[in-house]
């Protein structure tokens, strides 16, 4: 497997266009530093609905993973009759992602600007900013930022900073809506979708916090400016979380369409020889390094090579580490994180985790791979949410990207890689939130 492939150098032109969202990192925290970095936000604009036109023209898509056009989602809520709600989703459920937490800890006012704008654009009468309830420090930090804005008279209405259970599926938008309505933070059957009937039965706009941060800059600088970075088909910038075998793991802002190879280079380059990338997190996909390297980081660009972008997660996978063993661990975690509401997920994911663990750690059994292949259609598209689908996608990509490793395990037993310390981040039992409400 190839490692260091030639990577086109990042041009000076590119360098001038970014950072955008992260431009404020060098400024002092607080409202004054924020306004110094990005300029003041002029609210209220004369015609709040005009912002939706600008967002639609900008081509901004949701940065939470699904990539749905942000303006269209806002329009659906704005045109609905009655009172509306805005929910900012900062409950980053994906263990390999760190971008939302970075925004909320370092640039909270960018997200809060976005909430204020969304509230005005859709005509909402309440707004929530949801983060993990176990993260007390973050909750306090955000409440102080909200208070600072209230004192400055900045926002059309006070944003309610709300802690939600820190479970993987609790950050799904219908889970958040059900939780804010007093129920458990578990996904619900749709329709109705949140934009039809959400919090308190009101049409509800749920946007990821990064999407809202982009909104804050689009409102200041316009759709043409936004399209000045990225690709015509996927404009703007996005935050990516790069981890694994790179020299400088972390959160980076890239132009949409930057290749996976360039992103690895941005993160300091491979620390050792790489055999693969995991893109899109634990709902994502394994891609052999040579397939991933030239692929542009957009939803379509990764899909074209069998990958997925998700919330912009890239894990660099070193040669010698065992992808089967680590996928088995992740699938076990995902099975435990199932809300257990739907039979195929409740029974199918543990069965999948058992079968993968047997193949990875014991191996040597004829039919082990076929047995896993038979389980996948039993979980796919059979849940109320995409949890089982995401896990199935990860497992399918494991066998596509590493057919030789899978066969080795089936015929020879566990490889030497299974004894290496795990590379894919999973919260420890003591850090995990086991509650739903």
């Amino acid at each position, binding site marked *: 497997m190839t490692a260091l492939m030639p990577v086109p150098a990042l041009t000076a032109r590119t360098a001038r266009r970014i950072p955008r969202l992260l431009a404020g990192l060098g400024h002092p925290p607080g409202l004054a530093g924020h306004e110094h970095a990005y300029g003041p936000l002029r609210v209220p604009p004369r015609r709040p609905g005009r912002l939706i036109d600008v967002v639609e023209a900008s081509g901004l898509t949701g940065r939470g993973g699904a990539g749905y056009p942000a303006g269209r989602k806002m329009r659906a809520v704005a045109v609905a009759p009655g009172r509306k709600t805005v929910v900012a989703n900062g409950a980053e459920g994906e263990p390999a992602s760190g971008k939302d937490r970075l925004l909320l800890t370092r640039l909270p006012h960018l997200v809060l600007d976005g909430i204020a704008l969304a509230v005005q654009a859709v005509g909402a009468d309440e707004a929530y900013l949801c983060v993990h309830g176990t993260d007390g420090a973050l909750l306090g930090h955000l409440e102080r930022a909200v208070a600072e804005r209230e004192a400055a008279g900045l926002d059309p209405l006070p944003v309610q900073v709300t802690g939600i259970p820190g479970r993987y599926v609790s950050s799904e938008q219908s889970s958040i809506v059900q939780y804010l309505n007093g129920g458990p933070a578990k996904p619900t*059957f749709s329709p109705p979708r949140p934009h039809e009937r959400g919090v308190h039965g009101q049409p509800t706009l749920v946007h990821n916090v990064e999407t809202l941060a982009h909104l804050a800059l689009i409102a200041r600088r316009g759709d043409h400016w936004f399209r000045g970075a990225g690709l015509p088909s996927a404009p703007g910038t996005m935050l990516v979380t790069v981890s694994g075998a790179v020299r400088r793991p972390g959160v980076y802002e890239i132009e949409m369409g930057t290749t996976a190879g360039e992103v690895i280079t941005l993160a300091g380059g491979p620390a050792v020889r790489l055999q693969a990338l995991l893109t899109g997190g634990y709902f994502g996909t394994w891609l052999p390094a040579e397939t991933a390297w030239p692929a542009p980081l957009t939803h379509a660009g990764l899909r074209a090579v069998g990958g997925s972008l998700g919330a912009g997660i890239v894990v660099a996978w070193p040669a010698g580490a065992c992808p089967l063993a680590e996928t088995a661990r992740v699938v076990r975690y995902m099975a435990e994180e199932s809300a257990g509401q739907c039979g*195929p997920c409740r029974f199918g994911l543990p069965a999948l985790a058992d079968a993968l663990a047997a193949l990875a750690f014991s191996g040597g059994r004829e039919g082990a791979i076929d047995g896993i292949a038979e389980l996948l259609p039993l979980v796919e598209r*059979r849940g109320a949410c995409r949890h089982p689908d995401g896990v199935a996608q990860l497992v399918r990509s494991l066998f596509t990207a590493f057919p030789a490793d899978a066969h080795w395990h089936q015929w020879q037993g566990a490889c030497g890689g299974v004894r290496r310390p795990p590379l894919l981040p999973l919260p420890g039992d003591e850090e995990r939130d086991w509650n739903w409400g």
Partner: protein
Amino acid sequence: MSVTLRINPIACTGHGMCAELLPEVIELDRWGYPVVVSPAIPRPLLDHARRAVQACPRLALLVEERAGKHR
């Protein structure tokens, strides 16, 4: 207009009535949960499908009638 069968997987607890009443369209998986083999219901099976919907003790089986385009 097309008529399709859908399961609310949260409500469903795998009683299996639907597979008894509508074996042409619904099979049970290894855990006893229904799999809709072909969601579009042929006209001759419509009455059977409606009966299966009514028989579900969890009201988890839904007949959805769609006129023309649907997002």
